[in-house]
């Protein structure tokens, strides 16, 4: 469903791009891990497919339609859901209100449905005792689960995550990755995760390594 065509990006110097001529295809119902050394441009690549920035060369298209044609704001609102390492949530809201707000902004199918949001949170282990507490008073793992619940509550078919387990311990990491797998397989969405943890990457259906300005499939 998501396709990159001759994608290239550089910050200052065109002669030294982070990557160039990238042709990749990501399918719905699959999870992808992107690995590589620090500073190779994984986050930069993710920001392009998340619609947070424009490519310097080539283009990205969703179901055959280029992102620039869809419009980045519309794309972010309807087609992609982003999970970051931190700063995911509205700090002045409860988990429930975080979900309700995201559903309202993205005009999700279940926007305004409290029970729906509550059920998703409960499935992820955010029980009734935590649901109305300010998110700043939740643990890191709980906060990241709220962020994942948010992507599940919204209708976007593409979920991208940058080091989503970077702040989590082993148990939480396992739990979070399991949820990403559920999003891919049960909700039939396309999940793309940037990570440097091999055990996280191993859980995903596909792995790509960014090296020498190119993505190579790892098997």
């Amino acid at each position, binding site marked *: 469903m998501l396709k990159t065509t001759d994608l290239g990006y550089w910050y200052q110097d065109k002669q030294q791009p982070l990557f160039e001529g990238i042709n990749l295809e990501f399918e719905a119902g699959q999870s992808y891990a992107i690995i590589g050394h620090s500073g190779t441009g994984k986050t930069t690549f993710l920001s392009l497919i998340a619609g947070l920035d424009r490519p310097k060369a080539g283009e990205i298209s969703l179901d055959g339609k280029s992102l620039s044609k869809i419009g980045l704001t519309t794309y972010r609102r309807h087609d992609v859901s982003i999970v970051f390492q931190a700063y995911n949530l509205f700090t002045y809201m409860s988990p429930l209100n975080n979900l309700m707000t995201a559903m309202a*902004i993205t005009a999700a199918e279940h926007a305004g449905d409290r029970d729906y949001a509550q059920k998703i949170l409960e499935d992820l282990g955010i029980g009734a005792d935590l649901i109305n507490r300010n998110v700043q008073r939740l643990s890191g793992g709980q906060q990241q689960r709220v962020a994942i619940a948010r992507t599940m509550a919204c209708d976007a078919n593409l979920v991208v995550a940058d080091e989503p387990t970077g702040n989590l311990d082993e148990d939480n990491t396992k739990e979070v990755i399991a949820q990403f797998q559920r999003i891919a397989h049960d909700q039939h969405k396309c999940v793309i995760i940037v990570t440097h943890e091999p055990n996280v990457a191993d859980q995903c259906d596909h792995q790509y390594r960014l090296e020498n300005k190119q993505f190579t499939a790892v098997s």
Partner: protein
Amino acid sequence: MNFIKRAWLNVWAKKGRSVLLILVSSAILMFVLAGLLIRSAAVKATNQAKADVGATVTLSANRQAAFKKMQSSSSSSKSSRPKLSLTPVKLSDASKIAKLSNVKSTNVTSSTAVNASSYDVVSTSSSLGGNSGGPGGMKSSTSSGDTQIDGVTATSLATDFSSKQSKITKGRGITAADKNTNHVVIEKELASQNDLTVGDTVTVKESSGDKAKVKMTIVGIYKASSTSSSSAGPMSTDPSNTMYTSYTLANTFKGSKYAGTADSVTFNVRNPAKVGSLKTAGKKLINTSKYSLSTDDSSYQTVKASMNSVEGFANKIVWLVAIAGTIILALIVILMIRERRFEIGVLLSLGEARWKIIAQFFTEMLMVIVVAVAIAGAGGKFVGDQLGSQLVAQSTTTQTTSTSASGQPGGGGQPGGNGTRGGGPGNTGSTSKQATKKTDLDISVSAVNLAELGGFGLAITFLSIMIASGGILRLEPKKVLIS
């Protein structure tokens, strides 16, 4: 409308910050309100003062023309002594002018001097018993005597009384009903020296014509202020020897040919701003070679200038505070937005429109401002009171100094002497005193003030958010969220 809910959640969750914002905004708005209050009070006081102080148009003999005539006659016939002959004002002319629309009231003045008969005049060391009519102007009547008779329509309309320099202390003043009577109002000192009181009679002897004795009934006693006596100068008689009668009686003393005349007629104007047009209209009704119409709106001008300076100052305060408040609030909002970069980044990554993010900030500030307006409205009266009294004290002092320094030449130019003793500086002094009284600012918070305050609050909020929103518009979600 999700941004409104977000705004509310944010204001509520960050109560401490919201309270601080409310306090800062209240302080700013309190100053704005103080300025607004002073301004509206100044406008009110100006209108009041304009109505109270008023202005006058005076009909009197044309001294300039008479003087010219005297000069030409003296050069042609050297044998006869040059004589300044002033034509008394005809009351029939006066009544025509009195019918003009802007005339509020009319005061006929006819002054003369008589000699004491049944009483002794008050003498001061400087007084030589001769009546010079004061420095303001010469008497048109050539007669002299030890007692000054100021014939008026009503004492309340006479300058000394309307400016509160003289006050009725016992009985009553002369009114229009005293026309053609022998009623008299005498000064307190003269009364006590001669053991006279209301109901007693005094007898005077005419100083011209048949020198007949005339008996008058005292209907009131007045007190002349020391200001008028000190400013009258050494050449005049003691002010205590001035009696007020109806102008008809004064005319009788002058002689039969003075019936239906006056030294001058003063018209009090209803709308001081239109004093000039009254003068123009009046001039068409009189023989300008014999008579002249002069205007005096110096009191009005003094009050107006004084109030205008307060008003101008208040205006400046309002705008300065509004601008300063906008800058302060804008800086606070800019800081707030910087601190909320991640939140904005999350909103942008969810695909929220930038204008809705700005709208959220605006709504948050609006919630703060509404509370702040209420607080400022409650507290603003206090600030306004303090500031108002301070301002008035300051501006009237300045005003008094400036007017007495510049002086008013000719004491408003009232020729013929219409009973305004102590023209010139004396007159100015009394005017300023009056102005001080009138400029007491009435400070109260009205619904209009609150509405204005709300408007300013809204404008300040809007502007500061607009200034700060540049930051939101430039913010790139990638830079915020990926570092």
